[in-house]
């Protein structure tokens, strides 16, 4: 436990810097980033490729130590890999010898959770994410979107209070991606989990989030924080059509210096 001024934040990133040392060079991935995320908040992180977004999530999870500054997760300073989070990577990272359901249950087995309860919870998540009927399919028998849903279920199985997602839908086609966005939005509304989502899609970042953090080129600093002025209840096409949505996406696109929208 550490004495923090803002004990109500789920995630506090306090003046962190990350430098990677290789044989000759030193790469500063993150120059100085501070960010507080409130419990239950959905924060999207966007920025140019290679600016340090994945690095930032690894800091929060404790998979990486900052060169300077500190990260506090759920009131406790991060010193090593944390177990009170759920992590979804860009690639689903499923065990190819396990069925969809068993891949989800890996979380429970690793944690030594009660298997009956975990099984029940897994079935609920399978139901919720529309994977019913594919519980026993092996990963190679699933589509990319389904694999990603399995990874999402696995990350949610132990009901983490913080969910970290690193470009989880990057490999999906546009339509599947939209469906996944709608599903993730619903899951977030139902579970009240705090979410940090790294994405390259500006539309996705705005549709899902309460706030969008725009990072600069490496070495990364926070360029701007955009408050998303949309209602919590977000129908997909209706939201896309709203003027606030257009304003926010156009603004982020400007900040990123893109000529046209690229997802």
């Amino acid at each position, binding site marked *: 436990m550490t004495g923090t001024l803002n004990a109500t934040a789920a995630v506090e990133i306090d003046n962190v810097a990350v430098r990677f040392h290789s044989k000759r060079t030193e790469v500063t991935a993150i120059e100085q980033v501070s960010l507080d995320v409130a419990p239950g908040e959905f924060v999207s992180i966007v920025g140019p490729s290679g600016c340090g977004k994945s690095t930032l999530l*690894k800091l929060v*999870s*404790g*998979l990486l130590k900052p060169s300077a500054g500190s990260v506090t997760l759920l009131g406790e300073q991060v010193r090593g*890999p*944390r*177990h009170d*989070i*759920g*992590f979804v*990577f860009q*690639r689903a*990272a499923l*065990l*190819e*010898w396990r069925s969809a359901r068993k891949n989800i249950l*890996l*979380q429970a*087995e*690793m*944690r*030594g959770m009660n298997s009956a309860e975990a099984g029940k919870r897994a079935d609920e998540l399978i139901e919720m994410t529309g994977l019913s009927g594919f519980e026993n399919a*092996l990963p*190679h*028998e699933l589509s990319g979107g389904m694999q990603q849903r399995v990874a999402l279920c696995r990350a949610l199985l132990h009901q983490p209070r913080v969910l970290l997602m690193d470009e989880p839908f990057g490999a999906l086609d546009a339509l599947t991606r939209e469906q996944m966005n709608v599903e993730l939005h619903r899951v977030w509304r139902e579970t009240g989990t705090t979410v940090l989502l790294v994405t390259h899609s500006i539309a996705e970042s705005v549709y899902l989030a309460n706030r969008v953090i725009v990072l600069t080129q490496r070495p990364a600093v926070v360029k701007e924080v955009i408050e998303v002025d949309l209602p919590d209840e977000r129908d997909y096409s209706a939201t896309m059509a709203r003027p606030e949505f257009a304003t926010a996406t156009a603004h982020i696109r400007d900040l990123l210096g893109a000529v046209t929208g690229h997802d």
Partner: protein
Amino acid sequence: MKPVSGDRWRGVAERSWRPAALLAACLVIWHLITVTGLVEAYLVPSPGKTFDLLVDKWSYLWGHTWVTTYETILGFVVAGVLGVLMAVAMVYSRTIESTAYPVLLFAQVIPKIAIAPLFVVWLGFGFEPKVVVAVLMAFFPVVISTVTGLKSVDAEMLELAATMGGGPVKTFAKIRFPAALPHLFAGLKVAITLAVTGAVVGEFVGSNEGLGYVILQANGNMDTPMLFAGLIVISVVGILLFLLLELAEQLMLPWHSSRRGAAVTTLLAKGGS
């Protein structure tokens, strides 16, 4: 997807007819060489004569076959267990890896046939020196393939495991080891063929039983039909043991074999190495 069983048998037939045809062609050529008198009969016996001998002397051969098979399997199992343990130690400890690797390589490049007499001096004429040679031959591919397999695990998967908090033992049992199994099996399949060679080499050096002994005896007596018969039995033993492993792999790793292409292609590629 599990193929329907009818499809499955048709698949087996489709995959086997080419090698079977090749084998038949070899037999025909062998037969032609002997009937045309191209080569003297005492140098190359005809296939018919060889198979007659196989049938006539079956009980004699069977005893020796069993001895060689026993030595092979024992050597293979010891090499498998030691090889996997060694690989695990090497993957988890940099120090062990850097210390053991040069020694391992050295042990691998020494011709086993050259050190086999030493084992006979040390261990006598029983089965022990043969098993030791078989172990030495089979050990290396098991270690190399298991190390490769254990290292092939997706780094993100291991990071994910770290966030799940299962600790190193669970991570090994549930993620690393199963992920290494396809590589391990590839190594085991090479190892079993080498274990057969090792056992026979051990028998060459000093023995009064086993197929290596049979061949050596036949050689001394200029008994080429028996020599050929011995060679055929050794090959059959090697192939059967190999197929047994292939079967075990298919049963244990259905997720792997179902994704793999033509089994016979890999079978031939690995068998040739």
